[in-house]
């Protein structure tokens, strides 16, 4: 084909956001980064009326926790619980086969190699389910486009559709009611007792799945603290570096550690976690009863100033300064940077990548501190990061069957179902190592991917029993940090913004790159705020104020 078609293909491909501005990254970082950046996660104009807290409370399930395995490290103030070993016996949470022979299509994203359809993993799970769930797995990076196209064509909407929160399309409030089934009649209040695993999902996650006052989504719960400063403890110890206690000493320590001749820089781009350190809210904060947007806050200004000083000190890796986020992990794992800002999901993954060739690799999450050295203000992350929806055209029996499938998928850690969904069949897909932890073999790696897990997910626990030290470190860190967790304004309320506000945040991303790199002065922030206000910021404030007052 000609150049023209090729370039329009590229154009289409590159519609995937290629930088941290959107979601290339981890589930936690993705959702949090999208909100941190202040850009609307592609949500739509409000057509319906404002819904109140009472509306929401009326349609969500009640909470009935279940216990199949007792965590070794318990959850504290909402932190993530941890397991150091696999329970000796895996109990079955679903006694009889949930399905009745139905066949359903499900659209789901993948940020990894797309598994072959109808492989032995799918066959095994579908057999246990008693239904045939046929997944249409689509490239995660272009998933936003795919969703928009599919939802625009109602005949092509599958029976179940997974939509990550950052891919919710614009004007979704119009779509959700016309395309998807209202689940409140099936799950609200005590009706959820038919689905005990769904009842085990925390209330906040369900609240966040309420769109336009009705329950439409099945949630994938998120963690309370979703981003962190990660540092190379092994290298820190080797160089005799101390951990920072406030923002300014942070820069000094990183600058001291920088030695370009040894291909070593203090840090990567620390903007995301840096904002957290300064207590920048995700979107809004309330001052004297009025909504103040994150861009307008003093904290944002201070964070940007800090980042600029960090860049100027020469402690940041040049490629990171040039906006190359994709290789941030490579740089960190090679020891070219010592500190990075990342989603917490990347921690275990990093260990899996590096430990085989570097057994002394030790990456840890830094305890947060406030910029001035005091206690940090940590705003809770989104209670749910991914949703799935059921096609409105399904009849009652079909919806019930799909909810039964969801119930299976929501089986918590410690159950046979969880093991099946996450590791496949013993012997075929995985074997147990010396610690009794499942280790995927080659077939398992190719076939066992997150598909059912995206339909709905049990409360998140840290269950990487192959790395017990990691589980301990992680859960203790999570517990310590959760003590500082606080609700942001309008926490957990699912609000769809009008599309025209979507690009209000972009100039601030550009501003950050310009100011931090010294192309513009910090004072340019004032101009940007003024423009933001006149171009829609004030309107946006009024829009959200309605929900605050409701």
């Amino acid at each position, binding site marked *: 084909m000609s150049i023209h078609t090729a370039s329009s293909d590229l154009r289409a491909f590159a519609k995937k956001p290629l930088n941290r501005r959107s979601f290339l990254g981890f589930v936690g970082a993705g959702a949090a980064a999208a909100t941190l950046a202040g850009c609307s996660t592609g949500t739509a104009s409000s057509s319906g009326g404002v819904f109140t807290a009472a509306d929401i409370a009326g349609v969500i399930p009640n909470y009935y926790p279940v216990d199949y395995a007792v965590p070794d490290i318990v959850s504290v103030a909402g932190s993530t619980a941890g397991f150091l070993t696999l329970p000796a016996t895996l109990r079955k949470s679903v006694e009889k086969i949930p399905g009745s022979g139905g066949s359903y299509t499900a659209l789901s994203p993948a940020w990894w190699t797309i598994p072959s359809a109808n492989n032995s993993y799918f066959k095994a799970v579908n057999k246990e389910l008693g239904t045939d769930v046929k997944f249409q797995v689509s490239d995660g990076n272009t998933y936003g486009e795919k969703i928009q196209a599919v939802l625009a064509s109602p005949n092509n909407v599958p029976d179940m559709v997974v939509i990550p929160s950052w891919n919710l399309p614009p004007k979704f409030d119009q779509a959700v009611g016309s395309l998807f089934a209202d689940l409140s009649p099936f799950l609200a209040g005590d009706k959820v007792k038919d689905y005990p695993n769904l009842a085990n999902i925390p209330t906040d996650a369900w609240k966040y799945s309420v769109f336009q006052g009705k329950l439409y989504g099945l949630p994938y719960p998120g963690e309370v603290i979703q981003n962190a400063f990660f540092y190379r403890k092994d290298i820190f110890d080797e160089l005799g570096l101390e951990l920072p206690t406030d923002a300014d000493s942070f820069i000094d320590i990183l600058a001291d550690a920088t030695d*370009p001749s040894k291909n070593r820089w203090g840090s990567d781009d620390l903007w995301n976690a840096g904002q957290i350190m300064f207590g920048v809210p995700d979107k809004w904060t309330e001052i004297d009863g009025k909504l103040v947007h994150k861009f307008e806050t003093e904290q944002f200004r201070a964070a940007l100033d800090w980042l600029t000083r960090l860049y100027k000190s020469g402690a940041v890796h040049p490629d990171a300064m040039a906006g190359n986020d994709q290789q941030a992990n490579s740089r960190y794992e090679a020891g070219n940077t010592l500190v990075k800002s990342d989603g917490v999901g990347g921690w275990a993954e990093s260990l899996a990548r590096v430990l085989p060739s570097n057994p002394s690799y030790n990456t840890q999450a830094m305890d947060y501190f406030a910029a001035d050295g005091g206690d940090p203000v940590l705003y809770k992350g989104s209670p749910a990061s991914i949703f799935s929806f059921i096609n409105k055209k399904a009849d009652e029996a079909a919806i019930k069957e799909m909810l039964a499938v969801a119930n299976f998928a929501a089986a918590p850690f410690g159950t046979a179902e969880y093991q099946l969904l996450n590791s496949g069949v013993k012997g075929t897909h995985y074997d147990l190592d010396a610690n009794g932890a499942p280790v995927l073999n080659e077939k398992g790696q190719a076939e066992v991917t997150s598909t059912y897990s995206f339909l709905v997910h049990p409360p998140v626990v840290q269950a990487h029993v192959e790395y017990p030290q990691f589980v301990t470190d992680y859960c203790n860190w999570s517990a310590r940090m959760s003590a500082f967790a606080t609700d942001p304004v309008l926490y957990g309320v699912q609000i769809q913004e009008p599309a025209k506000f*979507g690009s209000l945040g972009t100039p601030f991303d550009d501003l950050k790159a310009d100011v931090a790199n010294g192309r513009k002065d910090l004072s340019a922030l004032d101009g940007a705020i003024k423009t933001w206000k006149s171009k829609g910021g004030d309107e946006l404030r009024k829009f959200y104020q309605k929900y605050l007052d409701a």
Partner: protein
Amino acid sequence: MTVVDERRPTPGAPPADPAIQKNATERKRRKRRALFRRDRTLLLMVLPALVLTALFAYVPIVGNAIAFQDYSPYVGMFENPWVGFANFERVLADEAFWSAVRNTLTITAFQLVFFFPVPIMMAILLQGLLSPRIRSLFQSIVYLPHFLSWVIVISIFQQILGGAGLLNQFLRDNGIEAVNLMTQPDTFLILVTSQALWKDAGWGIIVFLAALSAIDPSLYEAAAMDGAGRRKRMWHITLPALRPIIILLLILRLGDSLTVGFEQLLLQRDAVGAGAAEVLDTFVYYSGIQNGDWSYAAAAGLIKGVISVLLVLGANKLAHLFGEAGVYQKS
């Protein structure tokens, strides 16, 4: 050598009736009908392309009407509220839009001078190589980077020219201060063109190799016999023979000029700042597409399209003035 007079009807057609000859329009109509009869087969040959174009290009292009609406994909296409030129106003009022246009035109103009001629020169240089072995070896290498995605290309450039790259390691080892070539807004134009050259110059020579091979070598032979040296032969034979293709590509390239490098610039936007790297397509992406503001994107697309058409038609007219056929002409 017989010459077919296009204006005379083909043999076999009835001679012009003297009575009708007085009626000019009737004559014209007859000519047109005759022409149609003569070219029936040709039109038949074009038909599949026309049908496919009408179906797969024009039908979706009609979708650009959403530029005049406040579009929602969940409402039937024609049930969306019509907002007239509101979206266009939004686009044109945006200071960032004009900055993007400026950048786009600058980059295009720069590349027209520093990129466009390079494949031509390389092809001519290559053609003069005597050894077929070396020639085919060279050919089979230089086109390869075209197949690398921009992500890889930028990555490679960064590995070599970036702040932590080979060049700077070398400089540091020798006591010279490191310079990050990938983050300089002032030299960004040169960087972008170098990247484009590295990636696509080799691919671009293919068309010109084909064009060069269509030149009759006996022309060279005759010229050499007449005493014309290498340079004269190139100036008087090679380049004139390439002229129609060059002009055609130039005009088409001009039409494409507002589409200059999307992915390439998207990847480097943060490195040098939006001020230097924002072009029309990235602007539309960040302001419209990324947030699903389809009406906005469609409006910007229409503006771009109209300007491109004007550019092409203008360039075509210009080519006609120079006696070239251009993209198409009256006869």
